[in-house]
């Protein structure tokens, strides 16, 4: 398995500002992903964070709004830019780790935009 730490765990942000979420894994992982979970909803993939190259974004998500960095195999950041109340969500980092193709999730970063 993997221990995935996210910072911040919670935050209240003013609309129009940007916030960067950090994801740290206790071991080197190849695959790292960012998901969003809006209140009461399912999880939606934002992007795959690629080490050494630009992230791969899913339909409906763009780099200008959600810039992602992946400087090494244990760390990634997701920035939520120019936030609006609609961005209030849980943002989850996930990785493939261990044997058996398992995808693990971090504890999430709970953002509220006011």
């Amino acid at each position, binding site marked *: 398995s993997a221990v995935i730490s996210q910072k911040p765990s919670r935050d209240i942000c003013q609309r129009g500002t940007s916030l960067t979420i950090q994801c740290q894994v206790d071991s080197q992982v190849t695959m790292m992903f960012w998901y969003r979970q809006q209140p009461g909803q*399912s*999880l939606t993939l934002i992007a*795959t964070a690629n080490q050494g190259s630009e992230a791969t974004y899913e339909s409906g998500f763009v780099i200008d709004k959600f810039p992602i960095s992946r400087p090494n195999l244990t760390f990634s950041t997701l920035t939520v830019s120019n936030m609006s109340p609609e961005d209030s969500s849980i943002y989850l980092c996930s990785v493939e780790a261990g044997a*058996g*193709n398992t*995808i693990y*999730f971090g*504890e999430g970063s709970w953002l509220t935009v006011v």
Partner: protein
Amino acid sequence: QQPVQSPQAVILREGEDAVINCSSSKALYSVHWYRQKHGEAPVFLMILLKGGEQKGHDKISASFNEKKQQSSLYLTASQLSYSGTYFCGTELKAGRRALTFGSGTRLQVQP
């Protein structure tokens, strides 16, 4: 395409059984099952790969019917700790590892 989960919600008494289904309109490589409790992150339960296998862990097991592109999660003799929202995540291509999640099934186990 988002997989379809059913039922949307279920209420059980302790000791009762439940089945949660996850169906896809596309051919799947794998199905991953998670449980999420309120205010917490999703916790991995099990993964099933294409091949129609069945897996089990304690009183929770799952199957994957490749012909129907459907997976079922079986909760046997439910416990209070089983309460939460269950999500299936599907993977279309081997190696991609990015999951598309169903809308979730809210399970409540009552004493």
